[in-house]
């Protein structure tokens, strides 16, 4: 029982850190729902805490509980002071109580979502670490950091940086190390709670994003659709970094879209933080950060933003994201950590690799449409795209679509000009890459649903007020 209390603290502490930072960024009440604030707090807090642990480890400070608490408290102090001074560290109880009565349809959807969340939590907490890349890399490193109370910085040692693939960023292993430290022993079953929490965070942020533009039944239904993707749900029950990366990227993209809508710079920085943590979670986070930047650039071009203001915002976006990525990059440079051969771009092969093109297209097509990974989401995406084609120029439909297009282009290009192509052929990575964009595919379907299911009246008929 005591373990569960410790586990509760292990989750609460990073969530509190995240909440304090979030309070500095989003000071106004009721802008985001409490649930969304909590979900974001967990995401930001866990990423921030792992960065603090990394910095402590890089400075060769022992990674024991007291040191981690002191280190994080030092980082936490200024924003805590600011938020206490400005009285922004609040959760409004009224929004928990003021919930409009649910209809039967909504209750059924809630029950279905609850079943999926229960499934994910049960699968995580009923068994220890089970997946190959977890016991060979991610969780092995977490265990090594815990047992050695450090990052194992001896480059000649067999377990330099915890062993496994040393070029993998350390966000997830260090969050696990934190939990081992709080528990006081190595328990590779209880640490899996974080993957369940990532799932909860994803559906909360996703629901809230849809809710901002659609009615509650549509938001609930779309959230349920998100939980019907078999590979996404499976990844939420195992210990790989692909799913947390997908959560961070989705959240960063949704807040960037929110920024486009509201023009509120706070969402821009929030998106930058989440994109930065994504790059600190897995190497693929870097191209995802670039996609965010391209979308941001397209937004400024389309909205004819003043060049200087746009450049300033893009610069700040990169700067904020780099807070999370730069320490790891400097560390890689200082310790001469070689890049994976699969990350090396072979520009000279742009024309030689032309024969790869039809293979890449056929793999994308087959894996997206004719396997059990995504239910029939890609087919419905195409149907929705066809049916909503005329609306595509509207900003709220355009940018999610651009995201999906850029993502497919970016990852298609990656297979074209890097040796990642072998992982495409043997089926190792494509579906895991696609996992990163799936929440945005469902988001695109979701935001179109309201208009498709309740279409605007045909000409000659009286116009009804659209529900906000």
């Amino acid at each position, binding site marked *: 029982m005591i373990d569960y209390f410790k586990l509760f603290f292990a989750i609460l502490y990073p969530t509190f850190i995240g909440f304090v930072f979030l309070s500095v960024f989003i000071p106004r009440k009721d802008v985001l729902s409490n649930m969304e604030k909590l979900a974001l707090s967990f995401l930001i807090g866990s990423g921030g805490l792992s960065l603090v642990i990394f910095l402590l480890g890089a400075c060769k400070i022992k990674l024991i509980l007291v040191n981690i608490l002191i280190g994080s408290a030092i980082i936490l102090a200024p924003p805590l002071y600011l938020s206490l001074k400005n009285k922004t560290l609040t959760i409004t109880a009224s929004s928990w109580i003021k919930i409009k009565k649910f209809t039967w349809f909504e209750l059924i959807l809630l029950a279905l979502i609850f079943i999926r969340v229960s499934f994910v939590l049960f*699968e995580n907490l009923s068994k*220890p670490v089970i997946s190959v890349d977890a016991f060979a890399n991610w969780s092995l490193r977490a265990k090594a950091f815990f047992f050695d109370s450090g990052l194992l910085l001896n480059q000649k040692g067999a377990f330099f940086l915890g062993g496994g693939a040393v070029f993998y960023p350390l966000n997830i292993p260090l969050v696990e190390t934190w939990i081992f430290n709080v528990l006081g022993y190595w328990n590779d079953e209880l640490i899996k709670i974080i993957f369940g929490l990532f799932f909860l965070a994803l559906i909360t942020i996703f629901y809230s994003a849809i809710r901002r533009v659609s009615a509650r039944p549509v938001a609930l239904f779309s959230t349920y659709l998100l939980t019907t993707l078999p590979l996404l749900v499976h990844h939420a029950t195992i210990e790989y970094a692909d799913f947390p990366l997908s959560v961070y990227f989705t959240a960063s993209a949704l807040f960037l879209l929110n920024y486009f809508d509201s023009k509120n710079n706070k969402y821009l920085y929030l998106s930058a933080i989440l994109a930065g943590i994504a790059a600190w979670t897995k190497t693929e986070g870097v191209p995802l950060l670039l996609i965010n930047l391209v979308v941001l650039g397209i937004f400024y071009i389309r909205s004819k933003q003043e060049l200087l203001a746009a450049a300033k915002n893009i610069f700040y976006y990169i700067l904020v994201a780099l807070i999370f990525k730069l320490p790891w990059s400097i560390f890689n440079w200082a310790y001469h950590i070689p890049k994976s051969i699969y990350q090396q771009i072979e520009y000279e092969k742009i024309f030689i690799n032309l024969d790869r093109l039809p293979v890449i297209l056929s793999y994308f097509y087959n894996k997206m449409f004719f396997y059990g990974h995504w239910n029939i989401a890609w087919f419905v995406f195409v149907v929705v795209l066809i049916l909503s084609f005329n609306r595509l120029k509207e900003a709220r439909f355009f940018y999610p679509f651009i995201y999906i297009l850029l993502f497919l282009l970016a990852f298609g290009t990656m297979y074209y000009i890097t040796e990642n192509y072998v992982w495409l052929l043997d089926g190792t990575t494509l579906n895991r890459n696609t996992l990163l964009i799936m929440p945005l595919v469902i988001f695109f379907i979701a935001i179109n649903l309201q208009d498709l299911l309740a279409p605007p009246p045909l000409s000659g008929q009286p116009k009804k007020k659209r529900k906000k």
Partner: protein
Amino acid sequence: MERKLLFTFLFVLLLPFYACGWNQINISFSHPANTPYFIGQPECNIDGEEFTTIILRIKAERGGPARLFWATNFDPKMNEPKSLSFSIDSSNDFKEYAFNLRRQNPYWTGFIGQVLIFPDETTEGLEIKATAIHDDIITNLKSGWREFFVFEAPQLRSVNFIYGPKVNGVSMNLYLYYLAIISAAFILLSAFIKSQNIAVALKLGAKKTIIICLFLWLALDARILLDQARTVRLDFQTFYGKSLEEKRAAITLGDYYDFLKFADAKIPRGSGFNLLFLPQYYYLEKANYYLYPTHYDKKGDYVLVYNADDQAADYIKAGYKILAVYKKGEYILKK
């Protein structure tokens, strides 16, 4: 003329007999002593292109998952690619299970020399008969129905691949796409006939089309939910009431985890070990993961031998001594 008529009459008369089973091969199964499987008798030579379907008739006191293997003239060994998972239901009478193997597995090809059935749980209380036949619409329907409900349990490869439900070897998604496209075409056509205006027809048809797509999505999800419920049941049976150590043992092949725990107690903590094993599983990765800070080192003072006596013989010749024996074939050598 009469003779021609007579032959024609006889030919037509023979057709139903042909359809009723003249063109089938019966296979009986025996259970060799101390083995966990049933093997087809006698050894046969079925043409896989012609006899595409196997009908199993199984009487079982207890149900459970099972696997059907076969050997071909191209690949005479029983192995995973040439196999098919299915579930045996508990029944007092012989229950029929139809499998169109030609459609469900590309390796049902050439001449099939032997078939084998491997029940996951027990061979006790099981009786099996089988017939190889040409497929027809009825057996295809039966086979497709059964294939649709086959449990795709999470495996190590599920992290990269989930095949999803299939019917006669074809992804269920494809059937749903056909259904959606045909329905949408029908809806749009009828809307066009009513309104005589393409724009109006598209607008009216869009809503119905999207509803149909969403309905199909949810229908497929109901099938996926079934597998997730089965996963929960399976995990509950496997892990409920077990300690963390027992759970780790349960997710590791054979008794390997127990052997590692044994080695952990015998080797000084933090020392290096070499590991000899057959390359068929993640033995090395698991050893590093579970034994850390004791770790793999090819030149280490200790050698863990896990069912690899042949490789261990070289070390013994080189002067390594047996430090501790866990059981036959599983022991530790020391320099």
